[in-house]
């Protein structure tokens, strides 16, 4: 593979459903019979607080060649149920129900008997490929091990097979790579190696637990492609566990939505995505920002948080968060069954009404977000620039040697960035991990005076500013970090956390005492909770506290570094709405850094796409999403899965090959050329130009530039 645009579903792009299974080469299995059948699975753990009922009755069946998606938020029991299938839960777990693999009951088998099934009949792909491979053994050795456990093979045979497997999953140069250690693989390659291991013994079922969650979208697209190929090769059934509704839409045949340890809705992807009949599913689908959604409207968050699994309330576990809950919901827990007027089973007392009288689209109240009238009426050019970067550069020397350091190279983390943010607007900065987003942020916050390029904040060039001026500038520029747990001091009550920046800037006691409750109220928290500690709050609430802290000093510019990527989707929507609302109310400008393009599309007015230390495309949101012109932006956008099964099936993906090059080794000319799908379609003379000449920004519209010699718009969403 050398970088061609590969269509996402080679040869077979027919819609898959229960009836129309794809041809399977394997003849061992009866395709009409479920290969894995789980019935009434229940798992509970003892804990100090009481019995944790993590899984409360899960049933599903998958047939060979079929993909079942299990969706749910963290704590919904989706991972625990798959661990229970494999018998990998700790001894303290109590498991009941039935798990049948090709008719054979697995629950109650001894560990020795289960070991013969694990890795042979059931392959497993885990979430974080960095920690899922043993660091001290080579990748090849770990695949060889998987082969030799279950098959009579000599070391040489196993090694040859391991190389074949690595080739199947698309590891370049497998003969050499087989001896690499996990740390020498990139995240995407490690996940490929995991898949190679999972399919090593031709499993009947592959269980994939959040297989792409830790990966960038471009790598996610590659890995999903490999999983699909792995399925074609083995003819296995796949159980795909994820929180990402987009991934499931294009990948699964059927989907099961889990909430509080139980499936609450189940059916074919089309049924569940287009005709959801359970308020939780409806809420989930409404709360995710969509890449294909052009109208800017508030998301519909699901209020509240999932219940504790220790003491579940009586009745439906979702009742407390449900907008249409009735008395009966609080008394009797609904069972998963096909209700009148529905085509697929749901666990909701009012499903039949949702098929008739109640319109699923309107059950959630859409929050009102005031529109910024004054600002949008003023043309962009006339608004004040709050931040301006001109050729911002951050190079790190790469040194070798312990005592005498020699410079052996330069890491071009940020390699000449030029952009501006004007009053009242949000600039979204997107790009793969390792492209220099975080370094850019840190440089801006550092108010640098060295290296090349300038940072101008509120019209002031930060070079040559004294200490007092710098401190004053910092007051106007605040940051919200990604992980709200790590960013808040666990030993400080949140009131003190909010007061700290005020004290630093010498506010007097009375003003601080008045400001703290005001801030808490502003972000939707109860001011009476100021004396509580961060760990008493949920993830979404903690991120609200972080936002309140950032806003304490009434800044004009807030830098948001992946502010919602650690949150579950139903919570994420509420935080995004809050950010939208605060921006309008307080006249803030945001620099919003994220890898999730759907979120960026929802919140940003302008987008900057970053690749290997450089902005490759910059423009207003509509231009970037509707007419992306740099081949990298096109690939990035096309890699984002849409939570829309039909459109997903029809889309053609532009797959990028390989990984992001190291910023220590930036290619000559155009830095994207060695991964560029467009490069391959160019004539030799044109290719030479990409090879020799670093492309300058070409202006495509009033507010739209792309750094490509051959920029042309392409619709990819």
């Amino acid at each position, binding site marked *: 593979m050398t970088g061609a645009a590969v269509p996402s579903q080679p040869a077979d792009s027919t819609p898959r459903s229960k009836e129309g299974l794809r041809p399977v080469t394997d003849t061992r299995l009866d395709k009409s019979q479920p290969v894995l059948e789980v019935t009434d699975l229940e798992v509970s753990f003892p804990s100090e607080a009481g019995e944790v009922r993590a899984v409360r009755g899960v049933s599903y069946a998958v047939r060979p060649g079929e993909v079942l998606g299990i969706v749910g938020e963290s704590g919904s029991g989706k991972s625990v149920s798959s661990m229970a299938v494999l018998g990998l839960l700790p001894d303290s777990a109590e498991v009941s129900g039935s798990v049948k693999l090709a008719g054979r009951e697995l629950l109650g088998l001894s560990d020795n008997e289960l070991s013969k099934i694990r890795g042979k009949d059931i392959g497993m792909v885990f979430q974080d490929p960095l*920690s899922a491979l*043993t*660091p001290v053994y080579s990748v090849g050795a770990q695949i060889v091990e*998987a082969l030799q456990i*279950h098959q009579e093979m000599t070391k040489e045979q196993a090694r040859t097979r391991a190389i074949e497997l690595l080739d199947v999953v698309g590891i370049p140069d497998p003969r050499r790579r087989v001896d690499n250690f996990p740390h020498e693989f990139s995240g995407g390659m490690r996940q490929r190696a995991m898949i190679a291991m999972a399919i090593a013994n031709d499993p009947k079922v592959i269980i994939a637990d959040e297989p792409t969650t830790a990966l960038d979208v471009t790598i996610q697209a590659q890995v999903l492609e490999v999983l699909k190929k792995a399925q074609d090769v083995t003819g296995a059934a796949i159980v795909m566990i994820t929180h990402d509704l987009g991934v499931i839409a294009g990948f699964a045949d059927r989907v099961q939505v889990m909430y509080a340890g139980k499936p609450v809705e189940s059916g074919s992807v089309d049924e569940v995505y287009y005709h959801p009949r359970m308020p939780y599913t409806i809420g989930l689908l409404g709360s995710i920002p969509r890449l294909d959604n052009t109208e800017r409207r508030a998301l519909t968050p699901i209020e509240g948080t999932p219940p504790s699994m220790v003491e579940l309330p009586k009745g439906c576990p979702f009742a407390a968060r449900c907008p249409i809950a009735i008395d009966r919901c609080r008394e009797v827990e609904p069972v998963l069954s096909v209700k009148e007027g529905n085509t697929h089973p749901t666990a909701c007392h009012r499903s039949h009404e949702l098929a008739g009288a109640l319109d699923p689209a309107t059950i959630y109240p859409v929050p009102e977000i005031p529109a910024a009238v004054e600002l949008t009426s003023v043309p962009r050019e006339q608004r004040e620039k709050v931040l301006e970067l001109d050729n911002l550069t951050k190079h790190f020397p790469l040194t070798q040697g312990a005592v005498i350091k020699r410079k052996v190279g330069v890491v071009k983390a940020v390699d000449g960035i030029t952009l501006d943010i004007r009053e009242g607007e949000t600039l979204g900065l997107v790009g793969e991990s390792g492209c220099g987003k975080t370094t850019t942020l840190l440089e801006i916050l550092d108010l640098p005076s060295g290296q090349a390029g300038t940072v101008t904040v509120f019209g002031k060039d930060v070079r040559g500013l004294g200490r007092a001026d710098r401190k004053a500038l910092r007051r106007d520029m605040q940051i919200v970090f990604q992980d709200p747990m790590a960013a808040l001091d666990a030993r400080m009550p949140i009131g003190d956390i909010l007061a700290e920046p005020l004290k630093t800037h010498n506010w007097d006691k009375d003003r601080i005492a008045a400001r703290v409750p005001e801030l808490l109220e502003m972000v939707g928290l109860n001011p009476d909770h100021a004396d509580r500690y961060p760990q008493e709050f949920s993830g979404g609430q903690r991120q609200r506290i972080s936002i309140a802290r950032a806003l304490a000093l009434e800044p004009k510019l807030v830098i948001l570094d992946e502010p919602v990527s650690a949150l579950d989707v139903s919570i994420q929507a509420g935080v995004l709405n809050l950010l939208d609302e605060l921006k309008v109310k307080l006249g803030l400008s945001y620099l919003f850094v994220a890898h999730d393009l759907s979120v960026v599309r929802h919140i940003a007015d302008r987008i900057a796409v970053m690749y290997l230390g450089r902005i490759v495309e910059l423009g207003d949101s509509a231009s970037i999403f509707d007419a992306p012109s740099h081949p990298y932006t096109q690939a990035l956008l096309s890699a984002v899965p849409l939570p829309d099964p039909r459109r997903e099936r029809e889309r053609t993906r532009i797959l990028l090959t390989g990984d992001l090059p190291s910023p220590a080794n930036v290619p000559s000319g155009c830095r994207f050329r060695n991964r560029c799908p467009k490069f391959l379609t160019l004539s030799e003379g044109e290719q030479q130009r990409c090879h020799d000449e670093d492309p300058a920004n070409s202006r495509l519209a009033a507010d739209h530039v792309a750094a490509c010699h051959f920029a042309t718009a392409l619709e990819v969403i």
Partner: protein
Amino acid sequence: MLRKLANYLILVTLAASLSYFIAGLSLHPQANYEGRNPPLAKSTISKTLDDVNMNPDTPIVSRFATWANGVVHGDLGKSIDGSPVNDEVGRRIGVSTRLLLLATLIGSVGGVALGTIGAIKQYKFFDRFTTLASFFILAMPVFVLGLFLKLLTMKFLGAGTIHFTGETDAEFAGRWDFAALGNRAEHMLLPGLTLILLQVALYSRYQRSTMLDVLGSDFLRTARAKGLKRRAALVKHGLRTAILPVVPLLVFNIVLLFIGATFTEKTFGWHGMGELLINSITRNDVNTTSAVALFTAGLVLIAGLLSDLLYAALDPRVRVR
């Protein structure tokens, strides 16, 4: 690697020189001869001290030059009674090695094994018992532990059942025949046990905590998902990874024990290196003290190199390609 070796050598030289200066300036070998009855003539004392290069009237720098010159040529000088330090140190290294080699091997393996099992059976009886026992042993000063063992054997087996003073009984001294070996083993029993208990207690704590970290790890789950049985996965993937952070600790402790078993040697009357350090200081023996310091610095060098090499051999992540 070579650069590292050079760094270590410089450090050893510095450490040894510094300790010579400190010993030379703070110890007063003349005190051994002054105040005797009948008093020794000043010139006689001076002469005796000159013989062993410890005369405080000679400037410290020139005394150091003489000593350093000797060291470079493999001569550690003379001890205060005029005998060559080389012989004394050589003999005592032998004693320490005999005492420690077996004990550290058993102690390390035992500590790692106990820690691993303790982690796997966290909060079960075995874990609680070993944790309690370890803290009991660690909380006891070494000589108390030694005396405790002595008393235990005397109480339950009767005094004189096990001979524990010195390396051998007098009749077997310096002999290596079959009967003498039996006697040596008997003498080794209690000091060996003291050292083993101490080391097992210490290492098992470290190993337990690193193993606990690994037990919840994703790669162990992957190994099990591949079809490895529980025990095989725990040993091949778990222990193999959990031992990494313990390796430098083990190596340094084991190597430095050669000089750190002072109290055990004292308690059981073994004339090893640890005992030599205390004795030489109380005797104001500058050269012997410096020799012990040099030996210690050398051990640190060896421990550093050994742990680096071992770590690189065990963990591919630190290897430079």
